[in-house]
């Protein structure tokens, strides 16, 4: 499993927002900083 390369198109998916609606990552205003969390304590 490899990280996306610099300059590559960012992967785009539909995810659940806090209000339960489904939103694509690209729907949000760009540029973006994306933080993938590990487990929650």
């Amino acid at each position, binding site marked *: 499993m490899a990280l996306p390369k610099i300059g590559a198109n960012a992967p785009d998916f539909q995810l659940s927002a806090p209000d339960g609606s489904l939103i694509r990552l690209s729907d*949000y205003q760009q540029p973006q*900083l994306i933080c993938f969390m590990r487990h929650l304590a």
Partner: protein
Amino acid sequence: MQLHQPNFIEQLVTLKARLLVISFAPPEHFRKWREYWKQIHLAPEIAEKRTPEVNQLLQQTVFLNDPLLKVYRAYGLGKYSMLTVYGPSVLAKYTLYAAQGKKILKTREDVLQKGGDFAVSAEGKITFAYSGRNQLDRPHPQILLDSLLRT
């Protein structure tokens, strides 16, 4: 990412960048964690600094659920080994936390799942991609912003 640094917030606002925080935790668990995080970490900061910066950061932050890990996998985030997660450097850090009286909470989630930090330009291109050697290894947020400023 250490998000509470004033310069970071100011630059995030200037760039009109969104901060997307994605978790694979079950939605209800993630919702409770967000409330806890706001009360324990953000509220004192807002009260102490009395500046709009932290509120501005929250307005530009979106929390998203990925319980099936489809986006984690698309971004190449696999799993750590048990030896990495419970290796000497990590155990040493936890020992230090315990000595400082910090709480170390148990989790019901997958402790091996990797996290990661990425920056995406206004054109939808990756400008920064990083997943640490272990769970203590996260990049300084300025590095992510610098990658956006170079585009």
